[in-house]
């Protein structure tokens, strides 16, 4: 009940944000030079045909009127219609969303699988050479352009070793899993350095705290202390860091999906910008924004679940 009311309140608070986003996105995308009707009709298009098509898209109306139409439809849950494919934008987006969600979730899981053990190792051997290495090496990951990492992973794992498919999304769950490895690794490599550092720092803070000293005094083993006393407490602060950065990385899926030809909403967005498919660009941006908001909300909920002291307000 406590969670439900909180979630509802947060969702309501999201409405003005989404409204603002719709405003920005709408006017931004309409600033892009190039006419969807002309793009669609091609070089032979007569002015008359272009005008007719523009009328059917509602592009002949003044911009503010188009915006009101857009908002009116949005209020009914209608994301508009793709000019380019002549289907509902929501249909396109929902067909593409799974690949993006797979990517975001598996990248996050992969990043956690890599960074938690390393951070624990570094924190428990604080100051050692191992600690230094674990802290320094991932810094390299901060400056790696996602698309370049993607290309290099394709080169090594896809072309030389032939271990994983280099593009596409597979046809079943097993295929999805195999296809998602390289893209997820690409995204995870950008995430791990940040995670390792925040987790290590908070673990050290916890390890120094009185209750861990108490636990030591009780004669608990190092492993026991790490597992039951420090990890959860360290996770509390790292969850926020994770949330912020996952939200950021949602955007980089745009590029990663393109490199690996994943049929996600990122590639859909890029294609739609090229095609001047306004409705789809708007829809995808809104979906991206909702994802960010949802990730932030999940972060806060996780925070509350991990730390009984946190009040949801």
């Amino acid at each position, binding site marked *: 009940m406590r969670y439900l009311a909180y979630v509802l309140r947060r969702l309501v608070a999201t409405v003005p944000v989404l409204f603002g986003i719709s405003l920005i996105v709408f006017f931004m995308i309409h600033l892009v030079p*190039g006419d969807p009707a002309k793009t669609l009709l091609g070089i*032979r298009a007569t002015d008359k*045909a272009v005008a007719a098509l523009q009328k059917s898209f509602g592009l002949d109306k003044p911009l503010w009127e188009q915006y009101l139409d857009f908002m009116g439809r949005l209020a009914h849950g209608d994301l508009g219609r793709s000019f380019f*494919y*002549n289907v509902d934008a929501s249909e396109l987006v929902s067909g593409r969303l799974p690949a993006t969600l797979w990517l975001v979730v598996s990248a996050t899981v992969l990043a956690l699988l890599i960074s938690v053990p390393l951070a624990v190792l570094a924190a428990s051997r604080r100051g050692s050479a191992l600690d230094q290495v674990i802290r320094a090496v991932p810094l390299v990951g901060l400056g790696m352009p996602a698309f370049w990492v993607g290309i290099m992973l*394709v080169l090594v794992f896809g072309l030389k070793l032939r271990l994983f498919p280099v*593009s596409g999304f597979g046809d079943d769950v097993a295929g999805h899993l195999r296809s998602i490895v390289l893209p997820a690794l690409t995204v995870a490599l950008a995430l791990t350095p940040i995670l390792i550092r925040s987790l290590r720092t908070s673990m050290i803070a916890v390890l120094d705290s009185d209750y861990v000293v108490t636990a030591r005094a009780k004669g608990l083993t190092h492993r026991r202390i790490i597992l039951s006393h420090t990890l959860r407490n360290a996770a509390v602060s790292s969850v926020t860091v994770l949330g912020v950065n996952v939200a950021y990385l949602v955007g980089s899926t745009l590029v990663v999906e393109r490199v690996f*030809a994943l049929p996600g909403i990122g590639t859909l967005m890029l294609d739609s910008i*090229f095609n001047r498919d306004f409705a789809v660009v708007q829809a995808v941006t809104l979906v991206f924004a909702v994802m960010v908001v949802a990730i932030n909300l999940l972060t806060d909920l996780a925070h509350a679940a991990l730390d009984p002291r946190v009040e949801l307000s």
Partner: protein
Amino acid sequence: MRKPIAVLAAVTIAVTGLSACGSGASDKNDTSGGNGAAAAQGGDLVIVRPGDSVSMDNTMVFSNASIWVFQQMLESLYEVTPDGKDVAPLLAESHTLSEDKLTWTFKLKQGVKFSNGQPMTSADVKFSIDKARSTEGGWEFLDVAIKNIDAPDPSTVVITTKYPWAPLLADLANFSNAILPKDYAGKSKDEFLKAPIGTGPFVWDHWTKGSELKLVKNPKYWDTGKPSLDSVTWKLVPDDNSRNVQIQGGQAHINESPPFSSVEQLKGQPGVKVDLFPSTKTDYILMNQNEKPYDDVNVRRAISYAIDREALVKTLLFGNGEVANSFLMPGVVYYDKATPGIQYDMAKAKEELAKSSVPNGFTTTFLASSGDNTDQAIAQVLQSSLKELGITVKIQNVDPSAAHDLQNDMKYEISHSYWTMDIADPDELVTFAVDPDAGSKSFFTGYRNPAVIADVKAAQKSFDPAERQRLYSRIQKQAAEDAFLAFLYYSPFSYATSTKVKGFVALPTGNYHLEDVTLSK
């Protein structure tokens, strides 16, 4: 520009058994198709491609990725011959032309059924072509000469034209005039386009937009025994390298357009075959004559002389192409090899510029598509070459869609574009390129030479091949001298296929037919 390659008709192979078809072509196809068929039947052919289909509306669409798909389902009365220079009957059996060259009478092939089982009749033909010529902003321009279509009996179609019109058969062979069931077989147009019905070797399965499109074998196909394949799946893989890797790794069988940069490397791979099919693709530099100083023929000639085409062929095409001498291409009938096109000659370039209104050079802006490597390379090569003439080239990068609009609206100074033929007659391109009143403002350059325009009109009405050759040669020579475009090079269509694939051929118009393709296990 970025003229999407549109395609006509079916491969000759499809017509095997028709008396009208050349026996040579037939034999050749039997050989490749026959071997394959003996060795293997069935299979799902996977074609990887850089872009998705747009729509299945054959009367409206200009995208090759769409055309190449629906051509497997929809057939026209005629089809382009394998050399790309003529047409052969497909759903038609024969035709007669009246004395006044205005009335064409067609006999339809018997026993052809649509994939829904409904027989194909003259009513369907009338419906389809009437629909094609009444669209707006589509391919109706090909049918402008048509005055009326009649269906006196189920197997006869009579077409009357407004004036004698030589390219009619070539026009009818275009996919836009493909035969659909009358009234969309009782469906609404939108419903029909979601799962089109035609007489072709394959039928609709599904399309996941932005990802893949699948067709399956038409068991009722009139050319019994074909196709060999169970199904064809086009998968969208935008990255060039990934497509090549999928061919090498056996995940896909045909790569629709491996870049020339990868051709050499691919040839060395086991299990991979690279084909370079003769094409009708030509690249040009456009110069907008509405902008000074491009109204000056000497300036245009100077620029044309300053381009080292051999070097472009070598660096951009990796040698896989030829230097262009005419705006028509070798794969097109009436192309004149003797056209004295302008070739690289810096001395002459300087001479021409000295004679021009801007003897000391000028500053201009090259409109380039961002993200398009060919465009970028040509822009930079031109920038570097023209520097020697004292011409400063600034590069304006705009994304492809916007670049397209700017070219079409003639809001550019100098730019790059290309063309491929859609039909087996030069009229389409010639009209487009040199007749400023045909809607395309002479390839969006504003070029206007009354003598050339008169020759174009005369060639449309002449049915005498010798006369047409004379006229088209004169047009090509004059156009080259006027340097309304700087022709760059002719390039082939590249395809990388798995060696498991047999019988795959792309026509000079860019399209391909899959009913004779086989896939070994």
